[in-house]
Each structure stands twice: as structure tokens, then as C-alpha cells.
């Protein structure tokens, strides 16, 4: 294989590994802007991955699997939102519990069931796919990948331009002030979690019925946490968050490609890379921190 082919292969695998992260990141970004540190992202992705494969197998349609994934993400978002922003349970505890629950549940369910393999179809963009080096990686993809072209600008517009987004940002920054102004703080936070659930579900489902076509135990393998790291790496800016996802996706692709390239490097190091990057990012950004001021803090009327 030529060097160009190698690059093209790594790029294409990197992009495929980035896509689920990017979907989930759009969701997590919005939830965090509204003030929820949504740890249950992992549960959303993993649950959706399982649900999509199960549904695809039952209906014979990979697209139905994608929809099921979104619904499962929404369901987990609904549970998280009601526990954290109605019953005021600590959001981190809720997230960790949901993650453990979904991991255990899917691991069990996969042992007692068998599913047919289904995958969404591939779209190959004429002309553009022939561009050297990047043509194949960017323009021959499973069709849900192109949903990102819709989801990313929509997320940005919602947060930065819509009234809903303005209220979300207010709620994530100073919920007391938002409350006095007449915004229903916990309702907005629950809504943000639903958006997050839907997109994380889409990401998880894409991983299963998009890339692999089947489910295996713990198939997200911490991708939810990687996305949370990406949002931190991106310092709560959508563009930089997505850049973080691309970096992490490429690092993952490198790890997979190393043996094929005949390089002997400890691949564990590359597994660690995203977390190291996030850690460094946190160190760098502490000085000009743009973190939503009330991130992770529950809102109770009357308390200050």
C-alpha cells in the first residue's frame, strides 16, 4: 500500500469513529450549556446501540433501528432529567447509576438473545468521491453520517440564536436570575437533556447499525466519557468540541491502524490520548474558563 492509501485509510476510519462522538457531542454540548453535566451519556449511547440492533433485527430495517436508538436515548434522558431536575437527585449519581445499569442490562440481554445483522446503506457522492486522499473518506459513507450536516448547524442555531437557547444559556449560568425573570429553570434543563438523549441515541445507534451491524458487550467502551472530555476540551464551544471529537476519532483510528502499518507502538498509549488531551485542555483553559457557571449544580427555588 502506498503512503497515500494508508493516510486515506486512517482518515476514513477516523471519520467513521468520529461520527458517533460528534452526534453525542452536539447533545452533550447543549445539555452542559443548560447546566447539566450529563454523565449518563454513556448509558444513552450504549442503550441505543443495543436497542437499534435489536429493533433492526426484529423489523429487518436498519433505519427503524436508528429510530429506536433515538427513542432509547430520549427515554434515558427523560429518566435522568426527572431524577436530577425534578426530584433533585445528584446528577452525577444519577448518571453513574444509569451507566452501570445499562451496561449490566445490555451485557445480560446480549447473552440470551441473538440478532441478525443489519446495516444502513452506503451513500457514495459522485465526482467528489474521486478527489484524491480525502474523496473516499469523506464522500463514501453510511447515510446517517450526512445527518451531521443538519444536526451541527441546528444545534448551534438553537443554542446561539433561538429564544429557547438563550433561556438555556441563562439557566446554565445563573439559574436564580433566570427564575426571577420568569424562566422555568428545571423544565429547560429537562428539555436540554432530551435533546442530548436523542442525539446520543443517534450516535450510539449509528455505531451499531451504521458501522458494525451488530452489538457486542460494552460496545461503546467509554465513548460517552470521551465525548464529555471533548466538550471540556472544546471549552464549551461547539466548533472546538467537534474538533476535539475529530482528534479523538483520529487517535482511535491510529491505534487500530498501527499493527497494519507494521509499527510497534504501545497502542494503550493511544487509548489514553483523548483523556490526556482533555486533562491538558482543562489545565490550559482554567485561566480563561468559559464553563457554564452553574454546571452540575441543581436548582432549587429560594436557595442561593
Amino acid at each position, binding site marked *: 500500500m502506498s503512503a497515500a492509501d494508508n493516510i486515506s485509510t486512517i482518515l476514513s476510519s477516523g471519520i467513521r469513529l468520529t461520527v458517533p462522538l460528534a452526534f453525542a457531542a452536539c447533545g452533550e454540548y447543549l445539555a452542559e450549556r443548560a447546566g447539566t453535566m450529563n454523565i449518563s451519556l454513556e448509558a444513552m449511547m450504549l442503550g441505543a446501540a443495543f436497542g437499534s440492533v435489536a429493533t433492526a433485527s426484529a423489523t429487518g430495517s436498519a433505519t427503524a433501528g436508528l429510530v429506536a436508538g433515538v427513542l432509547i436515548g430520549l427515554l434515558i434522558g427523560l429518566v435522568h432529567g426527572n431524577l436530577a431536575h425534578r426530584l433533585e437527585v445528584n446528577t452525577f449519581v444519577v448518571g453513574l447509576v444509569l451507566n452501570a445499569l445499562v451496561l449490566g442490562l445490555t451485557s445480560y440481554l446480549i447473552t440470551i438473545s441473538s440478532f441478525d445483522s443489519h446495516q444502513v446503506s452506503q451513500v457514495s457522492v459522485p465526482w467528489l468521491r474521486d478527489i484524491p486522499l480525502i474523496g473516499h473518506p469523506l464522500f463514501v459513507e453510511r447515510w446517517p453520517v450526512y445527518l451531521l450536516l443538519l444536526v451541527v448547524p441546528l444545534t448551534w442555531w438553537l443554542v446561539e*440564536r*433561538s*429564544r429557547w437557547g*438563550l*433561556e438555556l*444559556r*441563562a439557566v446554565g*449560568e*445563573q439559574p*436564580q*436570575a*433566570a427564575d*426571577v*425573570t*420568569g*424562566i422555568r429553570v428545571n423544565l429547560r434543563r429537562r428539555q436540554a437533556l432530551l435533546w442530548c438523549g436523542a442525539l446520543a441515541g443517534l450516535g450510539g445507534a449509528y455505531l451499531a447499525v451504521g458501522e458494525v451491524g451488530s452489538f457486542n458487550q460494552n460496545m461503546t467502551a467509554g465513548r460517552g466519557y470521551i465525548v464529555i472530555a471533548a466538550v471540556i476540551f472544546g471549552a464549551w464551544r461547539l466548533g472546538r468540541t467537534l474538533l476535539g471529537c475529530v482528534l479523538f476519532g483520529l487517535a482511535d483510528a491510529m491505534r487500530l491502524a498501527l499493527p497494519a502499518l507494521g509499527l510497534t507502538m504501545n497502542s494503550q498509549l493511544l487509548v489514553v490520548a483523548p483523556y490526556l488531551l482533555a486533562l491538558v485542555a482543562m489545565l490550559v483553559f482554567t485561566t480563561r474558563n468559559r464553563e*457554564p*457557571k452553574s454546571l452540575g449544580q441543581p436548582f432549587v427555588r429560594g436557595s*442561593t
Partner: protein
Amino acid sequence: MTTVDERARELTPPSTPALRLRGISKRYGPVVAADNVDLDVNRGEIHGLLGENGAGKSTLMKILLGLVQRDSGTIMRGDTPVDVHDPQDAVALGIGMVHQHFSLIDALTVWENVILGDTGRIDRAAACRQVEEVSRRYGLPIDPTARVERLSAGERQRVELIKCLRRDPSVLILDEPTSVLTQAESAELFTVLRHVVRAENRAVILISHKLAEITAATDQVTVLRKGKVVFHSATSETTPPELARQMVGRDVSLRAEGAALGMLPVDGPVPSGEPPAEPPPETPAESAAASSDAAPATTGTAPALRLRDLTVVIDGVTVLSDLSLDVAPGEIVGLYGVEGNGQSTLGDLLSGLILPSSGAVELAGRPVELERPGALHRAGLGIIPEDRHSSGVVLDMSVAENLVMKSIGDVSGRGFVSRRKMHAVARRLAAEFNIVAPSLDAPVRSLSGGNQQRVVLARELSAGPGVLVAAQPTHGLDVGAIEDMYRRLRDAASGGVAVLLISTELEEVMALASRIAVICSGRITGVLPAAEATAERLGMLVGGVAA
């Protein structure tokens, strides 16, 4: 916005009150926050609401805004009784409030803040235009695209006003609006309010404890005390001393009461064996303000506690400004003022929770390195913090553990806490301070407020401090526990401890302190010997007017 002028024209004559409260009452458990309050607020007038803490001003306004529900009474807009269940109702009734805290989102821009709470699509250009229009009309210059976090306190106030006025309220409520403003900014604010009232025939309720402000800016003034309306007058027909007296009340009866209860401060030299570090209270102080600096410096010995030019700036707001105060050994100095004038910041500072921007704390003549955790404690300063639940005790740890918390080293050996030693110390302290607890291993949470406070006091005094700072030491305690606390503070002082009593309760300060320092807007406005502290003089100082 265009309807304002038309509306002003078709309004009823200014004599019809815009807002009438009749017999409004509100209780919180046994505490009466508002007691049968009647209030008429007229169009075209600024109505001042004057009162100390807990007088019921805020409760009344929260009722008007729908943040709190009244127990009884009627709210009338014009002649129609109305109900205010939530802030949205208040907006619909044309009642707007300029909040001092928690109302602007720092990370958003001015125009975003102004339209927050509206509905419908966002039109940035229109929003900016509106902000500029309102800003021009009232002379409140502001850049609509500026981020609020970059604005000064005065500019933020303008944004608050614009946000409120844009909704075209007929009654505008301002709660202590000048507490974070400079003099010039305050003057500017009152000019705007004049315009709002005169030209647009709105009604303004101005809540304040600053006498100068009330006399300069209002047309009518109502004084609240302990939830009741005690005084009402046209501002032009009353005087600051009269208002001060009405606000503080309780006049001369106070010292007589104190004497009857055996709670009068020790007059004359303190029985500590040391020469009193300040002139005895009989010496007439030439000027109240001057005596603060002059008094303790006259003798050679250093004061036990010296606060020197303490300035604290939090989020761009100067909370304490050049605060200086000395407390001599064996003396109780009361720091008195209306809540929110920097007392809790001073308490936090003396607990080591925050650092001053400038200035120093000296204990026994030596400056304390405030950056080092526990430095104040090691230098011999004990503190009864204002909020005992969050910083006084650990509620879920045992009485014994709480009692030895600051001296764990003394009850442990080889890295282990000796339960035997700990219990010995705890038993001794519990007996000495009459701490009533089911057992020494019971969590502090299970104790009554008075006993919790005794745990704090016992722990702090057991370290043998040279200085004891007591911040609101009797908040939430019953009468017996209050008297016990008073006795112990007095005992501590006669044992040579310098006691700084930070309190918003005048009775408390009068009962304990031999000197009273009054704090207003983070500054000491004056220091009076207790004997010379009349309600009028204190009222003036509390109101920020040097007596």
C-alpha cells in the same frame, strides 16, 4: 412602548393610589413578618419604605411580586382587588421590580438580558433598537451588545432599570438600589426616577435604610418596624432625626430593660486587671467618628484585635472599604448595622474564608498571615460564625468530635485520635458550658440551637483565645439560650478576652457592648460609647449619616 404617553394622559388624577395594601399579614411560624400593613402608593410619587432588617420591607415586596403568598389582607390596583400568585401575575399587573441581586446573567449581553423572559422569536436588531430607545429616553447610556460581566455596578443597575422600564410598569419597586453604587451613580439613578415619576406618572416604591436617600429622593415615607407600619408622613414634613428615631424605635426604655434583666454592660474600667485600653464611656467623645481611631491608640499596649484599613472587593463591588476597628482586651465592641452592609463579609474574613484586597488583621500587635489556613486560629482568634450550620459545627459528627475539632492534636497520639482523651475533654467542656446532649456521641444535629451554639462557644473558648468574634451569636436561639450566651460573652470579656460582637440586633449590642461601632456600606460610620448611643444617633449612623 409607544403607549406610555397616551396612558399617562388618560390616567386618573394622581390622588388615586396606584396600589393599595390593606391589612396585609404574613407569618413564618411564630415570626410575624408583616402585621396588618396598610400602604397607599400614589402615581407620580416616590414612596420611601424605611426600616431595619426584619422590619418586613422585603416580605411586603415579595408578596407584591408573587414570590411569597400573604396570609391575609387585600392588594388593590386602583379600586380592584387583585391576586398575585407568581412573578408573571405581577408583570401582568404592571408591577416591576429592580432586583439588586440574581437578576442579570453575567455571561449574556445587555440586549439578551433585557429580552430574557419574553416570548416569540428573537430579533436581535429590534431588541438592540429597543434598548437604545429606552436608554435614550431615560438617560441611561448603555451599549446593548456589551457583555454584562464587563459592566460596572452602576451600568448593571442601568440594565436592570432598562429591563424593567421596557415592560412599562406602572409601579416600580427598587430594593436598596444604591447599596452597590457610587455617590455619582446614585445621584444619576434618582434623576432617572424623578423623570419616571413626574413625566410618566408612574409610582415608585424605594426601599432603603439610608436616611439621606429617603429624605432627598422620596415624596412620601413609611417606616416599618417589626412588621408594622409605625410612621407615615410626607417626606417634606419630617426630619432625618425623626425618621431615625422611628426606624430604630425603642428609645430610652432599652437600657432600663437591660438593667432590670441584669444585662447591662459593665460601665467604667473593665475588671481584667489591665488598664482599659480606651477612655471609659463617661468621657464624652468629641466626635463619634473620630473616636474610632483615637481611642485605643492612646495607651501604650496594643489592642488585642486591630482591623486595619480592610478593603474587600467581590466581583467588582467594594464590600468593605477601609474598615478599621480596634478591640482592647477585656472589652466588648459591638459592630452594629443593617444586614448586608459588609458584616457577613467581615465574618468570613475573620473566619479565614476570604482574603482582603488590602489591609491587615493584627492580633496582639502582630499582623496575621491571612493566606495561611488556620493562621487566625493559631494566632488566638476564636470565632462564632454567623451561619453555625455551615461553618460553625459539622451537624452529622458527634458532640465530642465537634468539641475537639480545632485541637485534634491535643487528643491524639501517634496519628490516632484517642477516644478516651477526646471524651475527657468533651465531658469537661460539656459540664463547663452546660451543653445538654443525649450523649457525647450523639450527632450535633440532634441538639437544640442553643446547645449547638454552646458547642461552638465551648470549642472556641477552650483554645484560650485572646480575641473572640461573635457574629450574630443569638440568631434563632430562645430567650434562655440568649441570656446564657450573653452571660458567657460577658464572662469571657471579664476574663480578658477582647470580644467583637457583630450583630444586627440593637438590643443585643446595647446589652453587651461598651462601645458600639456602626457599619454602613462596608465602612465604619462612627463609634459611640454605649452610654451615648441614643436611638437617634445610632439611626443616623446606620443610615449612613455621620452623627
